[in-house]
């Protein structure tokens, strides 16, 4: 087997990606930077305005609100989804009858378009007649106006994001199955209870999976768009306005493509920075056979 670097072959085989990368990523990103310094409404030619857009961003309270919402959503949803997914994966590993059916049920939501289930969810979360509040009322709790109350709307979206953890559950299931029984038995012999075994043995062993899921779901959460657009349109009172939505509004509804590009760029930069930080942390904290693909 030849050991020399086969650069030509390597580039030839990976070539399709580089072409697409140049056409659909690099060029648009460069254009986007350029548009960030213009006022542009798609129909008239772009008008260079220097740093005006960036100055406007600094003063744009709606953008900062959107940024805060996005950050909050990302943090809460990643945290909740990790707990829920791990919990589900652990639960479905127990020998219970019907667990395969539940496993399929849990995965199903990841397969459906958000526009299809949104209306259903809108009704389920209705203040008076929705199932959720009806269920809460049955146990004597008065449920809030989930999507109408500015304090609860973002939380409702976070809960909805937990409904689509199916993919994460599958990853965790595979990871849990890979935990060597011998390690767990040794720990049990040492007198560790189930919780302690989970924390000391299982968690570190599946840490690559946790890192992978966390990073992927964080990236998704920072770019979330369809969910708030369809469920709440950014309301009430901009409490569910996320950065992607604000970019879309500026680009396609206000005719401010230049400003939208500026905003999108800031979103990109922040996503990159956060992801790199997360990867760095993952590299140091994730144990052993990790690093696969990271």
């Amino acid at each position, binding site marked *: 087997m030849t050991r020399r670097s086969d650069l030509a072959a390597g580039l030839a085989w990976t070539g399709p990606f580089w072409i697409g990368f140049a056409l659909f990523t690099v060029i648009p990103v460069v254009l986007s930077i350029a548009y960030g310094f213009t006022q542009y409404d798609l129909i008239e030619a772009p008008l260079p305005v220097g740093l005006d857009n960036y100055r406007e961003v600094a003063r744009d309270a709606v953008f900062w609100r959107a940024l805060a919402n996005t950050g909050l959503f990302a943090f809460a949803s990643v945290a909740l989804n990790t707990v829920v997914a791990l919990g589900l994966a652990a639960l479905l590993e127990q020998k219970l009858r019907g667990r395969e059916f539940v496993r399929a049920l849990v995965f199903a939501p990841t397969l459906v378009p958000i526009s299809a289930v949104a209306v259903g969810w809108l009704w389920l979360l209705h203040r008076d007649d929705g199932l959720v509040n009806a269920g809460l009322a049955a146990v004597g709790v008065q449920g809030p106006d989930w999507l109408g109350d500015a304090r609860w709307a973002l939380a409702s979206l976070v809960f909805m994001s937990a409904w689509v953890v199916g993919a994460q559950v599958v990853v965790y299931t595979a990871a849990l199955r890979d935990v060597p029984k011998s390690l767990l038995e040794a720990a049990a012999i040492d007198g560790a209870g189930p919780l302690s075994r989970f924390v000391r043995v299982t968690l570190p062993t599946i840490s690559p999976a946790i890192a992978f899921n966390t990073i992927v779901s964080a990236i998704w959460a920072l770019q979330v768009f369809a969910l708030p657009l369809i469920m709440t349109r950014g309301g009430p009172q901009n409490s569910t306005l996320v950065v992607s939505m604000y970019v879309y509004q500026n680009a396609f*509804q206000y005719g401010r493509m230049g400003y939208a590009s500026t905003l999108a760029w800031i979103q990109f930069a922040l996503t990159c920075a956060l992801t790199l930080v997360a990867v760095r942390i993952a590299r140091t904290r994730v144990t052993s056979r990790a690093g696969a693909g990271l």
Partner: protein
Amino acid sequence: MLTRRTFTNAAGGLLAAGALGYAFVPRRARWQHQVPAGRVALRYWEKWTGPEGDAVQRVVDRFNASQDRSFVVRLPVPETYSKAMVAIGGGDPPDLVGLFSWNVPYFAESGALMPLDDLDLGAYAPAVAELLTHDGRTWAGVNTCYTLALYANRAHLAEAGADTIADGGELPRTLDELDAIAERLIRRDARGRLERAGFLQAVPSWWPYLWPLTHGARLFDEDERRVTCDSDGSVAAYEWVSRTAERHGRADSLGFARGFERSNLSPADPFLTGKVSMTVQGPWMANFARRYAPDLDYAVAPMPVAASVYDPERPQGLLEADVIGIPRDCPHPDEALEFLAFTQRPEVQAELCAEHCKPSPMRVKPDGFFEDHPNPFAAVHDAIVHSPNAAVLPRHRAWKGYSDLIVPAFERIWTGADARATLGDVARRAQALVDRADAARARREERA
């Protein structure tokens, strides 16, 4: 050997083959089947569906039957103004597009529409003609126009006792009268939650920017290019809104209002089902009342206003129009122009407006227009069209951004925020949008 694997693979293969076969058999979209051979197909994007859409379709059908060169296909498209802008920018526009009158400044300034210099503006009511023009040129024809007025449930009013209304009138004309009656009509359920409201500005939630005109204030000063939603009149109006919210319970009434978000103009509409006794609505309400609540006994009057600006001869109200324009660089401009001219004919106009239960945008109406009109209160709406006090939305391209600032502000005021501070904030930001747009326009003109 037939294993489960084989079975699922076979099933999947069949499914795939079936799907691909279905997809790749050449067929045209449903609307393309309608176009008779030899005719030029014109695409017309219009916002309406349901009975209103059917009314427009009848106009289209008349045009198609009246000549044999072109064939207009009406396509219902939600958020038409946004999709039209994107399509025009992408070089892929339809031939005709139905917009709102407040879209005209934006579309005109960006050169997205074909100017219609041959349109006879004198045929329209002056206020309507203004809506069709920008910078001295005409950019759109009118489909229908409408004004907003107060719709009130007569049975509920009788229950409340209308003795508080001056001049023995039937409906409240001032805000004080309105508040007094609304107060008596509040009903709560066993849990203390709102079950029926007399009048809530949040129902429907479509016009959070409407209220300044109840105090004679306007949102924008066109001559000075200044945003005026923080003027004293406007602040007073929103303080009135805030007081209404407080009396009904801020959170409760907001939840109550929001519950109707998807039911407006359906059989579950709050006004048609008596959940709200009085509401500000457009003339189409008569249409939906006819369909869903034919036994509802209601009356219409111009919007109640503050006593200081009340003038029975010159009612206040918001005037808007649904307009029809031709995108620049559309595939068939000549044929599109022909259809547009057809829609502007007086008899076509009269019929469309009648079917929409709306008043007529023309200066001169055909005989019997009001007598035969399906909206028993068309005259009320019409009076507002011709009233010197009729307000229009700001004729500026930054209006959409401005109105999107008002929506959360309205909710904040409803839930207790200080009106003056909130509106001041909105004004500041909206002014920045206006100034930026004006500056950009000036620079473009310099370069040109």
